[in-house]
């Protein structure tokens, strides 16, 4: 609402000085400028990614394993599959635990211990991913004696749990109390109410949380450096070193070979398409209103 109008109506109010009006305009201009500066790298990154990536993705890239150093060609098929394997392990471990913790927080967590868990989850969210990698290394790699997809999965699972548990909690709390009471009223035990009524109602919201956690860990490189380790060949075994897309992008991007740079950009494009698809799908689902009980 432009304040000038007020002054026209009431002449007793002193007019707004030129200095104040100019300051107002300048600050408005500056904040528009910040938006432009912030969005510029976003578009720059996407444009460059598409520019370098599109030309580099071909059938070989998607179906072949890496060629030895110095030979052109080859692809990242094993890394794409390896990433899916590691993410599968991570989801298998992290999703049930995260949902369980979310149910605990929403249904039983209105006490001191619940607050402690809530706070821990938030703090855990901020632990650097490389530190989580060290711990997975100490727990799994040192015990097993070698790098493995399992170790990578454990590291990513630890990173998924806080996000999943906090969103699950938020979504369960959105479910109206009356729905729970109606279920109790029918003589349904509390555990079945929670699983088949409350959680069921909040399903799409909970899935949102899972997708967000998934998108976040899908691009993680640091915790995989010394857990999954990477692999030049096909591997589908959980107890063996495994290639992962972000790892491969890192190794190829830092290499001195042009052909590997090209493949790094192709890999980056594949990775970002995976992640942005997940995030956008979630966003659309949320806007369409298929959102919990709300």
């Amino acid at each position, binding site marked *: 609402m432009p304040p000038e109008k007020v002054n026209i109506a009431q002449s007793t109010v002193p007019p707004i000085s030129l200095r104040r009006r100019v300051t107002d305009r300048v600050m408005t201009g500056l904040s528009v400028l*910040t938006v432009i500066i912030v*969005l510029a790298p*976003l578009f720059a990154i996407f444009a460059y990614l598409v520019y370098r990536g599109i030309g580099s993705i071909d059938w070989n890239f998607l179906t072949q394993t890496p060629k030895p150093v110095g030979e052109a060609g080859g692809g990242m098929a094993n890394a794409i599959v390896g990433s899916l394997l590691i993410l599968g392990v991570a989801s298998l471990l992290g999703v049930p635990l995260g949902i*369980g913790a979310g149910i605990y927080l929403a249904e039983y967590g209105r006490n001191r211990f619940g607050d402690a868990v809530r706070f821990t989850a938030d703090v*855990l969210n901020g632990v650097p991913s490389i530190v989580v990698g060290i711990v997975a290394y100490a727990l799994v790699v040192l015990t097993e004696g070698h790098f493995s997809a399992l170790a990578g999965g454990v590291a990513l699972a630890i990173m998924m*749990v806080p996000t999943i548990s906090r969103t699950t909690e938020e979504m369960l709390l959105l479910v109206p109390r009356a729905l729970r009471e109606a279920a109790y009223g029918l003589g349904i*035990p509390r555990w079945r109410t929670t699983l088949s009524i409350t959680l069921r109602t909040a399903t799409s919201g909970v899935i949102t949380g899972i997708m967000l956690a998934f998108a976040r860990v899908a691009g993680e490189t*640091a915790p995989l450096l010394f857990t999954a380790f990477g692999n030049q060949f096909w591997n589908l075994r959980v107890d063996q070193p495994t290639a992962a897309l972000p790892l491969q992008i890192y190794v190829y991007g830092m290499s001195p070979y042009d052909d590997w740079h090209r493949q790094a950009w192709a890999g980056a494009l594949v990775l970002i398409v995976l992640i942005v698809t997940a*995030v956008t799908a979630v966003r659309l689902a949320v806007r369409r209103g298929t959102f919990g009980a709300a």
Partner: protein
Amino acid sequence: MPQPDMPAPQPVEAKKVSNFTAEGTQARPLVRFSNGESGDRIFKFAMVACGAAVLGMLLLIFYELVLRSGLSWHAFGLKFFVAHDWNPVSEHFGALPFVYGTLVSSFLALLIAVPLSVGVAVFTTEMCPGGLRAPLSFFVELLAAIPSVIYGLWGVFVLVPILRNYVEPFLARALGWTGFFEGPPYGISMLAAGIILAIMVIPIISSITREVLMVVPQHQREAALALGATRWEMIRVGVLRNARVGIMGAIILGLGRALGETMAVTMVIGNRPEIVKSLFAPGYTMASVLANEFTEATGDLYLSALIEIGLALFLVTIIVNALARLLVWTVTRGQPASTHAA
């Protein structure tokens, strides 16, 4: 609405009723859940276990880090963090260059990111036309969804050449006398790390600042406008001043993220363990040294020293995050601020 004289609504206390009917024969509930109570107990136990596991994870991380860094701690003690020679061959380890690199790159990032993030948050909450608000916050969130390694790749192939050819020569000419911008412009530098980090923490700081600004009561704005304030004065007096604790929390949360960021920084900072005043010189951070040297660490002391760096990083980020959460919580009154708007 069911009337109280009907028999159906009674199972509100179904558990007690079924206890009685276990012996008697009358008034059996229509549907029987034979394991209702024990099921409840088992379920609750399982869920509490999941909750406790979250707590356990944090303790486990701490325990493992302390356990595995013991060797280095006994060998160097507190001197570890003030010594600045890092020599795996002679097994002398001092972490000061890494601590320095982490702090300088993070503060540089905040210096760039804070005004920009607050500006974006102010624009989205106070000035932006309604239709633009959702796409704008979506784009800023998209910035948070880009993986670290892709920022690194872009940094190496786009940002670093720009810095080397245009920005650094310009800064050297304009501000070289300060000593912060001197030496050969490699591109790969502390400055590059700071800029990449700034781009990465902007989404966090601005989305939380936005949440904090939105909980500032509407009447604060109206009061300022009613007193004849211009829009900027209203924002400064009515909004920003009320939200400063929460904005502080958002900034500290961004700091936490910057301190622990690994891949993008490792790719552009140059990885040289030296302490140089000029921002054009390569540096090294705590997270980068872990990423680069952990798998190559031969010898128990070397590995232990690296894990001690990890422990320090862990403790610092825990403290920083806890502080930030407390600040944000006090403002949004227990409504936890999430880094993603679901």
